[in-house]
C-alpha cells in the first residue's frame, strides 16, 4: 500500500468501516510511514472535536429566528411584479364628436383672428393724442362692430379723450399765467384778454356744433385746432 491509498482510507479506518484485512494493511503502513501517521492523527483529533463540541458549533443558538431573518432578506430582494398597465386605446383618445370638434376649431379660429385684427389695428394706428383726430368716416365696418362691442374705442371716444387731455394742459398753463399776470403791464393784459376772448368764441362755437352733431368731423378738427391755439397763447404768456 502506498501513501495515497493509505490517506484515502484513513477516514473509513477511523470510523471502523474498513474490512479487517484492509484495516490491517492500513495499520501496517501507518506504523512504517511517519507522514501518513501524522495525517491520521490530525483527522482523528478533528473527529474527536466533532464528537465532543460538534453539536454546539453546528447548531445556531436560535435557529428559527435566523431562518426568519434569512427569509425576510430573501423576500426584500425579490422585485415586485410590474404594475399592470391600463389597456391602451386603439382608435380615438378624445370623447368629442366630429361636429363638436369642428365647432371648437371654428371658434378658436374666429377668436384668434379677432385678436390679431385688434392687435394690428392698435399697433399700426397711432393714438389720437399724437396723430390728431380720426374721422368717423375713416372707420371701417370691423372697427364699428368692435367699437359697439366695446373692444376698441370709437373715434368719438378717442376724440373726447383727446379733448380732455388738451383741457388738462390748458388748465396747467392757465394756472401758470395766473401767477404771472399781476406783473404784466396794462397793454399786455388787455391784448391777452382780447385775443383769449376771440379764441374762446371759436371754442364755444365748435363745442355747440359738436353737441348738436357729434359726427361733424370738421368741427372736431377745428375745435382741436383752436384748443391748441389757446394752449400756445397761454404758454407764450406764462413766461412774460
Amino acid at each position: 500500500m502506498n501513501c495515497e491509498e493509505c490517506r484515502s482510507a484513513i477516514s473509513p479506518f477511523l470510523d471502523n468501516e474498513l474490512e479487517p484485512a484492509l484495516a490491517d494493511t492500513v495499520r501496517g503502513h501507518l506504523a512504517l510511514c511517519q507522514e501518513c501517521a501524522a495525517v491520521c492523527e490530525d483527522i482523528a483529533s478533528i473527529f474527536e472535536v466533532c464528537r465532543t463540541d460538534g453539536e454546539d458549533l453546528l447548531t445556531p443558538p436560535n435557529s428559527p429566528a435566523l431562518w426568519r431573518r434569512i427569509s425576510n432578506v430573501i423576500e426584500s430582494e425579490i422585485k415586485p411584479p410590474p404594475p399592470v398597465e391600463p389597456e391602451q386605446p386603439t382608435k380615438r383618445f378624445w370623447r368629442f364628436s366630429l361636429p363638436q370638434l369642428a365647432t371648437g376649431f371654428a371658434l378658436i379660429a374666429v377668436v384668434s383672428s379677432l385678436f390679431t385684427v385688434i392687435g394690428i389695428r392698435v399697433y399700426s394706428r397711432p393714438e389720437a393724442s399724437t396723430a390728431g383726430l380720426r374721422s368717423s368716416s375713416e372707420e371701417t365696418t370691423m372697427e364699428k362692430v368692435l367699437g359697439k362691442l366695446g373692444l376698441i374705442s370709437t373715434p368719438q371716444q378717442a376724440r373726447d379723450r383727446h379733448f380732455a387731455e388738451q383741457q388738462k394742459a390748458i388748465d396747467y398753463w392757465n394756472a401758470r399765467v395766473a401767477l404771472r399776470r399781476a406783473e404784466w403791464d396794462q397793454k399786455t393784459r388787455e391784448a391777452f384778454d382780447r385775443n383769449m376772448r376771440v379764441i374762446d368764441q371759436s371754442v364755444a362755437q365748435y363745442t355747440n356744433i359738436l353737441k348738436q352733431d357729434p359726427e361733424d368731423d370738421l368741427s372736431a378738427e377745428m375745435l382741436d385746432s383752436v384748443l391748441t391755439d389757446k394752449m400756445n397763447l397761454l404758454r407764450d404768456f406764462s413766461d412774460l
Partner: protein
Amino acid sequence: MSFCPTFSSQLRSALKLTAAAALVAMFSISAFSQKKFSRTYPAPNNVRLQLMNKSGTVTVEGWNRAEVQIVATLEPPAANVAPQNLSGTIVINLVKDNQSRSDIGNVNFLVRVPYTTMVDIETRMGNLNVSNVRGGLVRARISTEGDITLTNIGASAVSAENVTGDIFYDGDIVAGGTYRFASTRGAINLRIPFNSSFRVVATAPSTRNISLGVFGGGAINYIGDGRRVVGKFGDGSATLSVTNQQGSISFFRR
C-alpha cells in the same frame, strides 16, 4: 394907432419863436426818449435769423450783402437787446433777455439779411414784415394780434400764424414746398403765380368765405357745406394749408 401894427408884428414874431421852440423841444424829447441799437454781423451762406420780440414791429428785408444788419428802435422803458451769433444763426430773444422786467416798451426792429437767409421771427404782439428772401424757410408767428406781411418770398417752407390780424403772402409756390397760413380772426390773402402747382386745403368754418379767384378752375371739392375747399392745381407737388377760423381766405394771381 402907429403902436398897434408894431405891437402886432412883435406879437407874431414872439408867437413864431415860441412855436419853433416848442417844436424843437418836442423833437428833442422824442429823440432823447427813444434809444437806438445797431449792430452788423458778417453772414455766411444760409445764415439763419431767429428773432423773438415782445411787442413792436419787426421788419426783415433781404439785401445784396453778405452781412446781417440789425437796427432796433427802443421805446421807453428801453428793453435789453443782446443779439448772439451762434455758428451761423443770429439769435435775438427779447423775452429771455428781459425775463425779470415787465415794463419794457415797444421795440421796433429793422433787420437786413442776405437773400438766402432762413427767417424765423416771432412776437407776442405787433406786426411782422418779411420781404425779398428766398432761403429755405420763412416762419412768422404772432402770439396775439398783429398783421403778417410776406412779400416777394421764394422759400420752400413758409408758415404764418396769428390770432387777430391779417396775413398777406406775395411770393412763389416752390415745387415740393410746404405752406401754412393760420389765423383766428382776420383776412388771409395769398398772391401766387398762376402756374403754381399745389394741393390746397382751405378752411373757413365761420364765414365760408373762400375765394379761389383764377385758381377756381382746378379740381376742387367743397367739403362740410362749403366750410372747406380741397383742390389740386397742376401736378400738386406743393402743399398749401390755409385755415381762418373767423375770417376770409382769398387767392390772387401774381
